[in-house]
């Protein structure tokens, strides 16, 4: 399908002109953002081009096994990214991979079992990508928040442990704030959707010429799917990772807190 009015090569170059303005401003104001912007431009181009070919190839295979393999690869890459953000948290890769994986399987599974989407690569890859990407962001936020807060509030955690609290009881208030902070951006975005911003999937469909009501239908599925899967991922990350900061004897470890 060709989207009407969109000149692929030309439009890419024109939008890059906007990025050039941003780079010029960054240089002029010495914001030191130009290098990061440059890396982002190159990486996104290479990655999107590559995934375009990969998705095209997987579409051609018409095999659900290939779809599952691609999604599993995305989960691994997401977990790796999350674990790198959360340096100093032991076992963070396994925790992130487990949480993101379970969130992806659970949400896509529900969508398939209830026949909300057909079992084809055309649906599973983009929806899976959204679930995995959003779960990754939330997993990173939860892990770093938990690490920083346990480090800063060490005296509180120790005081609770000294009064006979279990690791879980001692960390519960910190875990609660970490999860709230990690999930609030998505919950707020869901609350204000349609008023303040039009979400990506809907924008894409409307531009591609779909009926706006049809686009809204898909967007509602996407929103609920994301809200569910991201919450599952964050809660799993929280419950799996807080233990890494304690010994089985309800002692606060020293090692993971030293940066």
């Amino acid at each position, binding site marked *: 399908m060709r989207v009407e009015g969109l000149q692929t090569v030309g439009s890419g170059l024109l939008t890059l002109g906007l990025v050039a303005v941003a780079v010029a401003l960054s240089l002029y104001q010495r914001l030191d953002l130009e290098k990061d912007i440059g890396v982002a431009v190159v990486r996104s181009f290479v990655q999107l081009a590559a995934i375009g070919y990969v998705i095209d190839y997987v579409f051609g295979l018409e095999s659900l096994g290939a779809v599952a393999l691609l999604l599993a690869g995305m989960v691994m890459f997401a977990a790796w990214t999350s674990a790198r953000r959360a340096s100093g948290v032991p076992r963070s890769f396994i925790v992130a991979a487990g949480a993101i994986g379970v969130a992806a399987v659970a949400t896509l599974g529900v969508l398939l079992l209830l026949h909300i989407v057909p079992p084809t690569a055309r649906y599973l890859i983009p929806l899976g990508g959204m679930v995995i990407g959003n779960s990754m962001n939330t997993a990173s936020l939860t892990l770093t928040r938990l690490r920083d807060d346990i480090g800063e509030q060490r005296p509180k955690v120790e005081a609770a442990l000294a009064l006979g609290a279990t690791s879980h009881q001692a960390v519960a*208030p910190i875990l609660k704030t970490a999860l709230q902070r990690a999930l609030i951006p998505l919950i707020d975005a869901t609350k204000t959707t349609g008023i303040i911003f039009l979400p990506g999937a809907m924008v894409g469909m409307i531009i591609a010429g779909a009926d706006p009501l049809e686009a809204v239908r898909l967007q509602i599925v996407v929103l609920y799917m994301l809200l569910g899967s991201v919450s599952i991922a964050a809660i799993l990350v929280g419950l799996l990772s807080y233990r890494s900061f304690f010994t089985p004897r309800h002692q606060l470890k020293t090692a993971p807190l030293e940066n």
Partner: protein
Amino acid sequence: MPGGSITAVVGPSGAGKSTLLRTVNRLIEPTAGEVYLDGEPTSGMDPLALRRRVGMVFQLPALFGATVEEATLYGARLAGKDADAGRLLEMAGLDASFKDKAPQALSVGEQQRVSIARALALEPEALLMDEPTSALDEAARRRIEDLIRELNASLGLTLVVVSHDLDQVERVADRVVVLVRGRSEGEWDRDEFFSGPGERARRYIAGRL
């Protein structure tokens, strides 16, 4: 540490005083050696049960809950025990009416008393205190010292107090343990430590505090 006594642990910073204290209630696992409570090795005990028998008071009071009453009963409620917050606060030298206040509305000295009341709520056999007065002003410090002696006299509570203030040690302790670089350099009765055989160790420590 003899039961029913007040033992002070002194030593230069980094000597391992806080670490020693934390091995007693197993907030830290000892890498070697064994801690006994009433002749029983603590390594075989459930850490949570041990911490209910041996209370701890820290340098800074970290109180939990919206009211002083909640803060006082935190540990007792976790243990499924009921206690009278007003009576506990009075034991710690505060008026029972404090229980409805917000913990943040109290001075640090008063908060430290609440943290002592909260430890007493579990009816511990011993109380570990890690520099309990170093965040307080002189007047509040003296009042906590009086409270330490009072709890020892009225409840027969065994107390272990880490301190870097030798004047405080002289006012409060029955016995003194000197710790240097993770090793005990000896222990003395208070009078021996401040005049007599412990004099040399006292001078050595005084020069390093």
